[in-house]
């Protein structure tokens, strides 16, 4: 139920802010609504159990790309800059909201039992695949009971195991292994069979796209820095000098 409420809050924020980006005429306000929209999209990613992607969205989009866009807006501003002052009423409201946020953070910090973390970590001697398959076996029983169908092939069982592992929200390790070229979520199944080079059906990972994107980023950043270097601005009406 709380998932529905959170989804509706963030979905309305996302769509409303996107409409506001289109509707606003002032480009600086468009940047602000874009920040709201992208932050809400990050919250939707967390609701979809993509924890690493949600954090990466916040870091890269809100913390990088939108800041870059605001730089671009400021560097290409055509009018004279306006003096902005905060009225006392706005300062009061801002301080109130800040205090509320501090209360929320303090409450969440003090209400968690930090000493119980040790018991919830996976055991160190068992390999992650075994522990995950044990956990996913119990989740898979839940899936079978909910679905109620008596014949579940091996493929459906592996899909259930995969979804159970992904639903746990711990995607960082699997994403990292995928970018290194290993796909344990496809290659290791809960019924004990696995792909191998001997079988010839090892699932391919994302190592090549990862390397390509790394080189791409390097080239793009060097190119953008060169393109945007400080040059003499062409003055209007001085074509006689050319």
């Amino acid at each position, binding site marked *: 139920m709380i998932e*529905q409420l959170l989804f509706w809050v963030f979905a309305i924020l996302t769509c409303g802010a996107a409409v506001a980006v289109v509707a606003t005429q002032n480009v600086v306000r468009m940047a602000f609504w874009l920040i709201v*929209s992208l932050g809400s999209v990050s919250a939707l990613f967390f609701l979809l159990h993509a924890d690493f992607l949600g954090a990466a969205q916040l870091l890269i989009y809100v913390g990088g790309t939108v800041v870059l866009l605001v730089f671009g807006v400021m560097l290409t501003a055509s009018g004279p800059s306006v003096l902005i002052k905060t009225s006392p009423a706005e300062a009061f409201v801002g301080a109130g909201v800040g205090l509320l946020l501090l209360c929320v953070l303090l409450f969440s910090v003090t209400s968690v039992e930090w000493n119980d973390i040790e018991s919830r970590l996976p055991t160190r001697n068992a390999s992650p695949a075994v522990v995950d398959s044990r956990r996913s076996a119990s989740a898979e029983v839940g899936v079978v009971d909910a679905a109620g169908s008596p014949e579940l092939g091996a493929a459906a069982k592996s899909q259930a195991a*995969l979804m159970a592992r992904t639903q746990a929200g711990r995607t960082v390790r699997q994403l990292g292994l995928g970018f290194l070229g290993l796909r344990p979520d496809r290659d290791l199944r809960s019924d004990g069979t696995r792909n191998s080079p001997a079988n010839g059906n090892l699932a391919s990972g994302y190592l090549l796209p990862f390397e390509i994107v790394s080189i791409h980023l390097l080239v793009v950043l060097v190119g953008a820095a060169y393109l945007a270097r400080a040059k003499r601005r062409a003055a209007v009406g001085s074509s006689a000098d050319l």
Partner: protein
Amino acid sequence: MGSVGLEAYLTVGAILFVCGVVCMATKRNAIGVLMGVELVLNGANINFVAFSRFTPLGLDGQSFALFVVVLAAAEAAVALAIALNFYNNHTTIDVDRGNELHG
């Protein structure tokens, strides 16, 4: 009441996509057009991650979405460099003024 389904997330992605396309088509400020591009890419990302969660697509959807995020950041950097050059040459950021091919 059931939990949130796939169609709800796809609807959010569609709304973001349409807002981005309208923004790209109607804004005269070049930076505004770039913001439309970001909205389009985020709409596609929501689609990817929603399918990754609700169908057997699995981790492939999230990997694609990560690639999209990284490539979108790179493209925003280059597009901004081009916009800055345009501004330096024409002293305006209005895309309607870019109707001559010589610099």
